[in-house]
């Protein structure tokens, strides 16, 4: 079976700085994969390469076996890959409902239609309402997204990301900056909405990672130094030495 995502010797330089220095990674379908690593290791950059935001300096990226290197974000999105952003990236001047509806339009086949009225599409409205309930923002339906609380915006970010029904979901630090209870709610939401899908997640919270992930890749200075099950990664001397150590012990406690 082809992998959901396959990276082969992926490289990215910004000017002279080599940020991603030859990454090989294979993520199977329906796998929940966490990417961890210190700040500045290149995790977000790797996301941006996979999703087409940045062009590759070298290497190959395959999505469901198809080479997607050099494609634009919207082309990759149409091939069934969707992502969220580390810094909330929503349509701030539109209502929560409209944000979700925008996330649905392409996947429901509306394309660039200027001959259908969105308010008359009952299936579209229904799907948007369902999503609204799924991310627990039912009572914020007509609120302008820009005035939501931070946690609500993060939930909406997830909602927009999963709206199109993509089967590969990539989340960049979905729980960053959240309180304990908010994090717990977010983890539950992520579990719920990514069921049966391939999930790739950058995360710092070790509790969340060991809770959710089937496999973990450790990215340090643009290289993956370990990629295995949580147990193996936890025990890995290489990882301990390079980066984790103390925080792993914390997660044990």
């Amino acid at each position, binding site marked *: 079976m082809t992998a959901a995502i396959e990276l082969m010797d992926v490289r990215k330089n910004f000017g002279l700085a080599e940020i991603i220095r030859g990454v090989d990674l294979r993520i199977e379908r329906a796998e929940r994969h966490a990417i961890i690593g210190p700040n500045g290791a290149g995790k977000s950059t790797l996301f941006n390469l996979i*999703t087409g*935001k940045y062009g590759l300096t070298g290497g190959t990226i395959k999505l469901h076996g198809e080479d997607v290197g050099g494609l*634009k*974000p*919207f082309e990759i*999105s*149409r091939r069934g890959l*969707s*992502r969220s*952003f580390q810094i909330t*990236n*929503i*349509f*701030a*001047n*539109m209502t929560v409902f*409209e944000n979700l*509806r*925008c*996330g649905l*339009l*392409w*996947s429901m086949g*509306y*394309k*660039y*239609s*200027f*001959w*259908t*009225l*969105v*308010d*008359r599409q*009952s299936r579209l*409205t*229904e799907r948007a*309402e*369902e999503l*609204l*309930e799924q991310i627990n923002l*039912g009572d914020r339906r007509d609120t302008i997204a820009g005035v939501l609380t931070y946690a609500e915006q993060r939930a909406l970010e997830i909602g*927009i990301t999963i*709206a*199109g029904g993509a089967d590969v979901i990539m989340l960049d630090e979905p729980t960053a900056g959240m309180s304990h209870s908010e994090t717990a709610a977010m983890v539950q939401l992520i579990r719920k909405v990514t069921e049966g899908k391939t999930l790739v997640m950058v995360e710092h919270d070790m509790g969340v990672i060991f809770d959710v992930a089937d496999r973990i890749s450790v990215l340090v200075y643009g290289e993956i130094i370990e990629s295995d099950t949580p147990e193996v990664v936890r025990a890995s001397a290489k990882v301990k030495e390079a980066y984790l150590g103390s925080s792993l012990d914390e997660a044990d406690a």
Partner: protein
Amino acid sequence: MTAIKSTDRAAAATSGSAVLKRFAPWIIAALFLLFLPVIFASGSALTIMNQMAITIVFALAYNMLLGQGGMLSFGHAVYMGLGGFFCVHLMNMVAAEEWFLPIPLLPLFGGIFGLAFAMVIGFFSTRRAGTVFAMISLGIGELIAACSIIIVVFFGGEEGISGDRTMGPEIFGLDFGSQIEVYYLTAAWLLVSAAAMYFYSRTPIGRLANAVRDNEERAEFLGYSQRYVRLISFCASGFFAGIAGGLFAINFEILTEENLNLVTSGTILLITFLGGVGFFIGPIIGAIFFTLLQTVLSLYTEIWQLYVGALFVLTVMFFPGGMSGLLFMHVRPYQLGKLNILFLPYLKTFLPATAAILGGVGFLEIAFHAKNASVGDQMMTLFWLTFDSHGLIPWLVCVLLAIVGGYLACRMAPLLRDAWDEANSLVAN
């Protein structure tokens, strides 16, 4: 639970009363346009109303870019102007019987020409939004305005080209020789175009124009090319601007370089912004208001453009939502039943503010008269008062009014702000 809610919604949308409610504003608008000439029957009133209608179509088209698509164009007169020039040529071909075309359909062809040109320009100008787009629009505006002097065959050089709308084939006995006929033709096009533009904003591409305006990057990750979304908005805007051009051609029967130049482009930006870019009705309000200033205020003062400029600057600085934004700001206090809280503070602030404005206006008018009236003509009339513009007293009165009024208005402003906060808070008073 969700399923029930949305089926209700769907059911409500198809029931008769809902349909009526959807179209009620358009029916009211149609009746309004139908009976307007009964109230304002004079020739000059009809001229003003026609001009308003054309400006409304143009401003709505412009707002498809600025308000809905987040694209700031400094050269949108080009699309209206080219549509208009094309229509005058068509009119002349129809008059020469080289072509058969009922005059009422002319604006459609103006629209098609505007659309075609927008496709060509938009193909490269919509790659990026923001500054790059604005700069290209400025460049194209300048370019086409320059062409209008050079390419005499199409643009007629300095004096432009003119036509005669009455030379077309008669439809139902109408030859558009009388102004009232032109009014109803223009009004019909206004209604159809405005409705089309409104419904366009409710389609997937209309919604996406908003999305790309808010966050072009995110739209790309939802499967939409920001460039295509912008291009389609741009073409649609060019189409409706072209329709406005066609209406202009029918109304004035002449187009000149002025219809293409940067002044006209700047004016439509000003009109749209004054009216407010955030609401569909904004450009309509702006166009009506501006046309009134242009036609009525200009009868009373030669420096009316100065006031418009000042108003524009004040709007940009203090009310970026424009007049419609100001209007809709009151919806929430109204819903909370708290509009009455605002009444007294408004009065207390606006009275001195009005005095200050009158003082300022008086100062400018006296200064203008003193400098520009012919030698020996020292008497001027302002607000029904006749006085010597070279005397000291009028100056003093104006300065005093401005200073005292301004001071009092500033003193009262915090009061208004508090009242405003209270009127918008959920806490019952």
